[in-house]
Structures are given as C-alpha cells and as structure tokens.
C-alpha cells in the first residue's frame, strides 16, 4: 500500500514539474512597471487633494462647534459655556495654524518632487 502511495507521489511530482507555464506576454513587465510608475507619480497629488479636503471640512466643523458652544446651557466638565468656548477656540486656532503649516510643507515637497522629475 505504501509502495503504491510512493509511486503515486513520484508520478504526480514528475508530471506536475512539467505544469509550470510561461507567461506568453513579452511586454508584461513593462506594462506593470509603467502602471506602478503612474501610480507612484499620481499618489502625491491625491494625498495633497485629500489633505485639503479634510482640512476644509475640519475647519468648517470647528467653526460650527465654536458658534454652537456659547449657546449651550449648564456646565460641561465643570466649565461654563463661555470658558469652554474660549478653551475650544484656543485649541482650534493652534490646530488650524499647525495644519496650515503641514499643508504648506506638503505642497512644497510635492512641487520639489515634480521639478526633480522634469
């Protein structure tokens, strides 16, 4: 029984060794590489655009929250609405300028990379 199994295994090993196919498309490598290069060069543009979208959406949300906060009644975490608004606005302003700085650097980097490529 074991002998039959060994013969069987050898048989399949032998025939399957001949089952490797060769890719019949000679331009395959070039096609994939050009696709990859296109993706690589398009990526920064997508990232910059996405960053701006999220920045604008985030800023608008921040403005809306800072307008709503003074109208609240009662306390939140032991803070009165006017103090809460002030804390929020300070945090919002800091984050806003911090993000603007990051975005400017991102654009600068992207432009430098584009110049290098050309």
């Amino acid at each position, binding site marked *: 029984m074991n002998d039959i199994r060994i013969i069987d295994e050898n048989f399949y090993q032998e*025939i399957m060794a001949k*089952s490797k196919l060769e*890719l019949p498309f000679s331009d395959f490598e070039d096609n994939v590489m050009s696709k990859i290069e296109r993706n690589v060069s398009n990526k920064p543009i997508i990232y910059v655009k996405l960053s701006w979208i999220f920045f604008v959406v985030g800023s608008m949300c921040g403005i809306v929250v800072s307008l709503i906060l003074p109208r609240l009644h009662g306390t939140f975490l032991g803070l009165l609405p006017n103090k809460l608004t002030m804390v929020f606005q300070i945090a919002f302003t800091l984050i806003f300028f911090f993000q603007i700085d990051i975005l400017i650097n991102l654009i600068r980097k992207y432009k430098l990379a584009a110049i290098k490529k050309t």
Partner: protein
Amino acid sequence: MEKIYIQKVLNGDTDAFRFIIKNYKDMAYSLAMSVVKDEFVAQEVLQTSFVRAFSSLDTFKGKSKFSTWLYRIVVNEAFKVLKKKENNVIIYGEPSFNTASEIDDFASKIEEDEQRYYINEALEKLSPKESLALRLFYLEENSIEEITEITGWSCSNIKVILHRARVNMRLILERSLKIDKKTFTYE
C-alpha cells in the same frame, strides 16, 4: 537575494521591483491560470496583483516566505475575478478504477512537449481549487501549512482537495491517452 530588492523598493527605487516581477511572474501566472483558466484574464489578474504587491510591500514583515505572501495576493485576486465572471467548471467524479500501468507508461510514451500539453490540458479541466492545490503542492513544493496561508483553506480541506485533484487528474490523463491512442501511435 529578494530581500535586497524588497529593501531597495521600500527605499524608493521603483525599478528594483522589476526583479521581483521577473522572478515570480511565471509561477504566479501558473497559479492564476489554475484558477481563471484564461491567459488574458490571468494576465489581468497578475497585473493587478503585482501592482497591489508593490503598493503594500511595506506590510510584508518577512514572517513567511515572500513567495507565500505574493501568491496569496495572486490567489485572492484570481478568485475575486473568477467570482465576478462566475465561470462554470467541469467537476469530474471519482474514477471506478485506477489503471496505474497505463498512466505509468505516460512519461515514457510521449514526447516532453506533448506531456506538457496533456498535463496543462488536464489541469485546465480540473476545478480551480484542485489545479491550484496540485500546482502549489507539487510544482511549488509548498507544505500544507503554506498552502493554508496562501489560500486560506483549512488543512483538512486542502487534504481533501488534493486527494480529489489527484484522482481527477489521473482520470483526465487516462481519458486523454485513450482518445489519442485511437488517433496517434506513440510506439
């Protein structure tokens, strides 16, 4: 060797990925063909898989072999495409007998090219899972554990698929030989 090229790609040398494509394209193509059974669809599968492998190369931690990681992407993509196309596959039943002597003569009777033709024809007729399991186990010499990692199937499932694949492969080869014996003589 491939580790050097992977590192190069991760360091920004896009062109180093060409080595990886060159090295793995044929085996990846064989696996994709096992599943989709069409060379043009297999090419599409490969293109998508290599692009995906490139963009997620930083997620390869080197815990498994690079080939295992890459083939998992290829196999997943191939099954995804297959699901979309909803191909009907022929599933062969268990043969009632095994004429081992007839098959054992197989290697000696026909020429190398013809053997390749018959073997690949037989693999094409097998179900995607069966031909994939055979290629991974016998051609790529992956262990059952590695096949589990590549395909996501359980060990017992792989063993069942492999058993069925062996039986069906033998049956298809027997049939091909019988048909051709009427038309051609190899002696």
